[in-house]
């Protein structure tokens, strides 16, 4: 079921000649219920795939925006268990694939087998474990595969062919290409990034080309994430041939900066509609 949902989504997008819009938010920020409502707003706005971030106390792959959201979320009851609850509620209302974006330790504390069962029961489609390179977690990977849950591999600009082979071993669903050597939200903080330089856009176009080449080698859709915080960057990535774009820190910031739930949700839906409209591939 779960693998099928991702495959169907990408097949439908390919037919429509459009790249996937993948939206990330930190579950539990500003509260568990409000983050669920924020996810609903994103999905109503047309987000194709939802990434639910599991808050962790020591998020070493995240920049300050998501790290701070993670700390707030933990204060407000955010956890792996709460995230699975949100996924389950959303699954009852939406068909879009749901990816859990997490660090390994919350899964270890939950219990690997118990986690796989709970994730499958909640209607989660894939898991992205940011600090679990392919050499680690063989038992967890086997259990996830058994339950038809995809493990999303991460590849980066410093991955050579050996790393690529290791990461793609048994990969299903899609591949996540990290556009920069850096933490989440990196490019947004690069010096001079307030005004998009042609350098920045050519950097994203290069990431998009790398994603397309990777998609051809792997036979899997490849989405590009980290530091995509504008329509221009998203378009640069898509025009170069990526299968989709992931936007995270920008949304987490938008959620944090809008204290009124109704206004927040309206902004999120509008954001999704606007970005989705420009993700078609050029003819």
């Amino acid at each position, binding site marked *: 079921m779960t693998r099928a949902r991702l495959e169907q989504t990408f097949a439908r997008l390919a037919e429509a000649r459009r790249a996937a819009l993948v939206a990330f938010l930190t579950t539990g920020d500003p509260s568990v219920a409000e983050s669920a409502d924020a996810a609903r707003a994103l999905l109503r706005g047309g987000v194709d795939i939802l990434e639910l971030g599991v808050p*962790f*106390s*020591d*998020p*070493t*792959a*995240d*920049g*300050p925006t998501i*790290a*701070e959201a993670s*700390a707030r979320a*933990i204060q407000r009851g955010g*956890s*792996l*268990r709460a995230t699975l609850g949100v996924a389950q509620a959303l699954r009852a209302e939406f068909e879009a694939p749901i990816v859990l974006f997490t*660090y*390994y*330790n*919350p*899964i*270890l*504390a*939950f219990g690997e087998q118990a986690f796989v069962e709970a994730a499958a029961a909640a209607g989660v489609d894939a898991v992205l474990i*940011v*600090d*679990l*390179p392919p*050499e*680690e977690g063989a038992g967890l990977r086997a259990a996830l595969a058994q339950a038809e849950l995809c493990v999303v591999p*991460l*590849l*980066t600009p*410093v*991955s*050579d062919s050996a*790393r690529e082979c290791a*990461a793609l071993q048994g990969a299903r669903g899609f591949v996540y290409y*990290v556009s920069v*050597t*850096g*933490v989440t939200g*990196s490019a947004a903080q690069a010096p001079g990034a307030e005004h998009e330089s042609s350098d920045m856009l050519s950097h994203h176009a290069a990431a998009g080309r790398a994603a397309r080449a990777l998609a051809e080698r792997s036979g899997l859709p490849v989405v590009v994430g980290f530091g995509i915080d504008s329509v221009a960057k998203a378009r640069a990535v898509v025009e170069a041939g990526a299968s989709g774009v992931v936007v995270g820190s920008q949304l987490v910031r938008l959620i944090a900066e809008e204290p009124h739930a109704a206004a927040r949700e309206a902004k999120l839906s509008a954001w999704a509609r606007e970005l989705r409209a420009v993700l078609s591939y050029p003819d």
Partner: protein
Amino acid sequence: MGESASEPNVSEANESTGRVDSTNDEATSADPRPGYFGAFGGRFVAETLVPALEELTRATHDLVSSSDFQAELSALLRDYVGRPTPLSPARRLARVIDPRGCHLSELWLKREDLCHTGAHKINNALGQVLLAKKLGKQRVIAETGAGQHGVATATACAALGLPCEVFMGALDVERQAPNVLRMQLLGATVTPVESGSRTLKDAMNEALRRWVTHVRTTHYCVGSAAGPHPYPSLVAELQRVIGDEARAALMERGAPPDAVVACIGGGSNAIGVFRAFLDDAEVALYGVEAAGEGLTARHAATLTLGQVGVLHGARSKVLMDADGQILEAHSISAGLDYPGVGPEHAALQASGRATYLAATDAEALAAALEVARSEGIIIALETAHAFAKLREIAAREAARRGRPVSLLVCVSGRGDKDLVTYQAAGLGAPPREDPVRSAVDQEAP
């Protein structure tokens, strides 16, 4: 690399001491995965860091074991650090601890406090900065808690000519001001970390983030025998000089000690001294963690009370809650104030090869005073935790062996950086009498 914690000879060990348990699969050589010590260790990092860790693993294997590198490092350790450090007999302290000599026959101190910069940290920092130069890295970053590793790395970078940035929790920047000044004087940039508990754990998070961003040109000089593979092995190999020197000096006098004692935060001085004695099955190994305000209150006793988890790239014991969130540790000593521990110690605990105890803040302070007054050595607060358990260890080992025992203690660092804490705890009060005489008098029939 990827040594297993306990190598063969286990059956002999069982016969002679009963301490080494070959039946426990968790920490024998049964697990051949590289970077693992039994069930502990590994490499739990973002994919971006994996190529750099692979490069470092190859360098650790090829360079560190090469005779050229060893010769260059040995010369630095001798001519710059002042190695070998002395092995001091502590006769007066032995009498304070055990006035009648029923449990403790000899007490030896391995004097890492006499290293340049005042602690064992320089052994590792010099080795890693030398390695970074050989790898063509353009800058070095490091995390620090008490500031000792930061000072050591800043020193090594100044001496070998590489730029250095040290990440330090904002709370530690406040409570270890003299070390901040030392690092700055040495030309390093000290970056305060405001996230989380604003201590060592958060400094390491930030160093990892910086490393991900500049991974091609930067070497991350990890300060303890923790972190992702190959760091636990690399740091242990660079610190092993402590144990090798101590063992050679003691063997020259006739015999290894009955037990070796060291304090444990991440565990680098302890693993450095333990590694030389791992194959001496009759030598008991003791690590002493920080029990802080007590084991039922705020503490940093990761091996004693932690669970199996993943923090900073390795599977080891960690302090965490039911959701897998890492808890804040507490210790009066900034160097032990860490909710994780090096994976090799978790494996040595699981196999039974080493025993881990915990000393409270108050016990450590009392021990620091005892050592200062009886031996004329002002030890670091971290080190004081090891001394705080010498009575208990001597009694246990003497009971087990049916005779007074000899102990080797690693004096991991000196206490200059802790003078304010010692003063605040009232340790500066004038003594009422000679500690040795008073100890002997109290015990006299």
